[in-house]
């Protein structure tokens, strides 16, 4: 087993620890810091340091070491927190992140930045406490260290395991020879192996080490199960060589790299507190256990379950033809299978769902930094952090959301003086909220700033050459900011206002199958609302039949369906047909014409008009029959084929055949290009009805 195998685990864990650290730093109350939080920050730094030491990331180890020392002073109340100190801490955290990235990419971290941050930290230690932080502390793990560290940076928790080295007996139970050698070697890294002997199933190793029993267990659990290892202190009589070589502190690394070790369930000899279990439990925010799985594995499971569902419905179809009395058990079994399969599908789909906290947790830092830069006081409120959303969507929503938050801070929320003058509290309020609404998730960015300025928007739009009129409704005016190249910022800042953005935001969100709306009131603020489907993998569809072919319409786009009567149909300009629905005239698009389906019903009054809405347009889609509503698994056509006009994706039906999912907005475009092509060739076909409207009888 190679230690590099654990690199990825370490990187991921360290990243998470840094994330926690930042969160705690941001939440810190400067006047009355919560001891628990300070501890958590300290532990995060400590764990990273340990891991970095194990894997030989010296720069990272040294930086965290210096950082940890200062953190230790703060948590013991010897260093009073100030805003600039927290700023430095945050900066350090960023630096650690950079270093981590460098190691992850197999590079050496930026030496200059490293020197700078070390100096800053040492300076801080000197100025604030008059204590010189020991510079040369992070000696290689195995090298003996004459004195216990002047700073109490060997964790206090491990004190129970002995100061400067204690004697432990590690029992390996039912461990294969191959693994055993490895483990003994590993133990050698942690301290000095005094003796080893075999006792039946047990293999006993006496060890002189400064590491705590828990730490040793944690290391061992990399390779073997927790119940295969027992650690206990040796009685003094067995101790012979005295304090020969206490290793500095290679104890913590494993706990950093694998905090999931169930320390509480492992048999314990030393009454030491598990150093790692606590920060982890906090980090997970109530989640007790979790595992990391690559996304493509999950996707594979989802695919397989999709297959299972299809097979199940195929069986179901066959079984439904059987005599229910003669094959009672079979029919019962089928319904049970159906239920199980659906449950399984639901459960599997939920694996992909992650809480919005994953997205929202990025914003406190952003808001803090930006507000400071813009000299604004802003309080960030997040609501609905536990609302779940498909992982692939959460990743894609981050950029648009960041843009909206920046916009709100830059253009929305006013400076404290202006706010006071307007009779509002000096501190602005930015709310990020998420909630479920039907099959959608609603994400809102709400600020209590000045709101959009209608006149300014209109003036700007005219300057940009957009066609606008004063009679436009507010909603239409707000939509202007999504036009490409539109920005009302007086001057271009590096925060926002380059005029590239809102149109990109809109495009991104539409690309995810969602849409954006803006609500704004002068003086009261602006709300940007993003509506997204919960997942892209499953779609609520309505299956329709045209000729012999079956298509799926996204149910979200379907408003209603009706059978048109002759009186409701009007012809216009030759071959355009309009359908009057209540007081609206909707263009009619026949699916069989657009998609060249043969043997479809051509008589309009025999067909069914499905009223659909896509990209703000409403029209009537003419189909032969409605078959029913069902959830379908969305399959990408472009994986092996290409983009098909009028079609967004495909799915697999119960009988194993493929059905195309229609793209409502694209159908409209396709219909137009087809009509134009037909006009160009002057070949009227099918339904060009004379005025007044009269049916063309199918021959």
């Amino acid at each position, binding site marked *: 087993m190679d230690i590099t195998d654990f690199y990825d685990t370490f990187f991921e864990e360290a990243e998470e620890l840094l994330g926690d650290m930042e969160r705690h730093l941001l939440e810190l109350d400067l006047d009355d810091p919560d001891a628990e939080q300070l501890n958590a920050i300290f532990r995060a730094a400590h764990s990273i340091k340990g891991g970095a030491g194990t894997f030989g990331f010296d720069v990272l180890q040294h930086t965290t070491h210096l950082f940890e020392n200062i953190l230790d002073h703060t948590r013991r109340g010897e260093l009073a927190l100030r805003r600039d100190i927290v700023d430095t801490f945050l900066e350090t955290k960023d630096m650690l992140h950079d270093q981590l990235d460098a190691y992850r990419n197999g590079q050496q971290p930026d030496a200059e930045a490293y020197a700078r941050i070390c100096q800053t930290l040492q300076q801080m230690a000197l100025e604030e406490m008059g204590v010189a932080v020991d510079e040369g502390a992070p000696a290689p793990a195995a090298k003996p260290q004459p004195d216990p560290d002047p700073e109490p940076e060997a964790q206090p928790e491990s004190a129970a395991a002995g100061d400067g080295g204690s004697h432990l007996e590690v029992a390996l139970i039912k461990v294969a020879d191959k693994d055993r050698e490895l483990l003994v070697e590993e133990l050698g890294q942690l301290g000095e192996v005094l003796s080893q002997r075999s006792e039946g199933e047990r293999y006993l190793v006496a060890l002189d080490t400064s590491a705590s029993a828990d730490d040793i267990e944690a290391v061992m659990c990399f390779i073997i199960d927790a119940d295969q290892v027992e650690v206990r202190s040796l009685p003094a009589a067995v101790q012979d060589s005295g304090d020969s070589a206490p290793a500095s502190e290679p104890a913590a690394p494993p706990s950093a790299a694998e905090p999931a070790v169930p320390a509480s369930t492992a048999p314990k000899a030393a009454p030491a507190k598990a150093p790692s279990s606590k920060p982890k439990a906090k980090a997970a925010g109530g989640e007790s256990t979790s595992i990391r799985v690559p996304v493509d594995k999950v996707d594979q499971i989802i695919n*397989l379950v999709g297959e299972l569902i299809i097979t199940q419905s195929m069986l179901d179809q066959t079984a439904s033809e059987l005599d229910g009395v003669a094959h009672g058990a079979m029919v019962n079994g089928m319904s049970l299978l159906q239920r199980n399969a659906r449950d399984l599908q639901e459960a599997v789909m939920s694996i992909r769902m992650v809480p919005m906290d994953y997205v929202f947790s990025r914003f406190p830092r952003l808001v803090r930094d930006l507000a400071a830069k813009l000299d604004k006081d802003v309080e960030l409120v997040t609501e609905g952090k536990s609302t779940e959303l498909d992982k692939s969507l959460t990743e894609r929503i981050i950029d648009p959301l960041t843009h909206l938050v920046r916009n709100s801070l830059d253009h929305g929320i006013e400076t404290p003086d202006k706010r006071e003058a307007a009779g509002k509290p000096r501190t602005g309020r930015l709310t990020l909220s998420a909630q479920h609404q039907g099959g959608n998730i609603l994400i809102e960015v709400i600020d209590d700033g000045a709101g959009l300025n209608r006149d300014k928007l209109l003036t700007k739009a005219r300057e940009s050459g957009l066609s606008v009129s004063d009679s436009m409704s507010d909603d239409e005016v707000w939509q202007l900011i999504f036009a490409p190249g539109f920005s009302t910022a007086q001057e271009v800042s590096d925060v926002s206002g380059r005029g590239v953005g809102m149109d990109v935001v809109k495009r991104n969100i539409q690309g995810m199958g969602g849409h954006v709306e803006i609500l704004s009131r002068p003086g009261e603020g602006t709300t940007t609302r993003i509506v997204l489907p919960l997942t892209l993998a499953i779609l609520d569809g309505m299956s329709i039949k045209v000729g012999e072919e079956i298509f799926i319409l996204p149910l979200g786009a379907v408003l209603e369906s009706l059978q048109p009567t002759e009186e409701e149909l009007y012809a216009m300009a030759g071959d355009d047909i309009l359908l009057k629905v209540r007081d609206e005239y909707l263009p009619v698009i026949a699916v069989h014409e657009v998609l060249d389906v043969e043997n479809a019903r051509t008589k309009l009054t025999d067909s069914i008009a499905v009223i659909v809405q896509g990209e703000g347009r409403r029209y009537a889609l003419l189909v032969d029959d409605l078959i029913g509503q069902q959830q379908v698994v969305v*399959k990408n056509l472009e994986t092996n*084929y290409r983009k*098909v006009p009028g079609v967004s994706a*495909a799915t697999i039906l119960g009988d194993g055949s493929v059905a195309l999912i229609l793209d409502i907005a694209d159908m409209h475009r396709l219909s137009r290009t087809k009509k134009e092509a037909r006009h160009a060739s002057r070949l009227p076909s099918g339904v060009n009805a004379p005025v007044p409207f009269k049916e063309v009888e199918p021959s």
Partner: protein
Amino acid sequence: MTSNLNAANVAAADAHSREFLVFSLGEEEYAVDILKVQEIRGYENVTRIANAPDFIKGVTNLRGVIVPIVDLRIKFHLDSVEYGGQTVVIVVNVGERVVGIVVDGVSDVMSLTPEQIKPAPEFGVTLSSDYLSGLGSLEDRMLVLVDIEKLLTSEEMALVDHVAE
């Protein structure tokens, strides 16, 4: 026929020979590199795709993967295009993609030594020699060796979006 060929195959199977899957289109014999072939299956359950070239028969479900089906007989302008029990689909892997090609039948797998592979003459109109890796000569038979990867990713096959590239 097959047993003869197998004997010949064994003899010819030296280090440099390549194996080809031989299939027929009408009276003609073609062959593709066997390493590109994923599987062979019957022609069934193909969903038509509107506004696609006529040789693209549509898409089918291959164990949960949507695979486009191309009829090479239509593409190569063969006279009779019929779908029957003998009609098979050769599923090939082209780069990252999976594509099914409809052929009249699959006959066998054979090894060709470099000497047996002759360069293709440059005169084809329907099937440009760009898409051929050569002609396989086997006593009285001639195999048209199709470079299936080049053919299927070509612009004229309209299987791949070329706009993005």
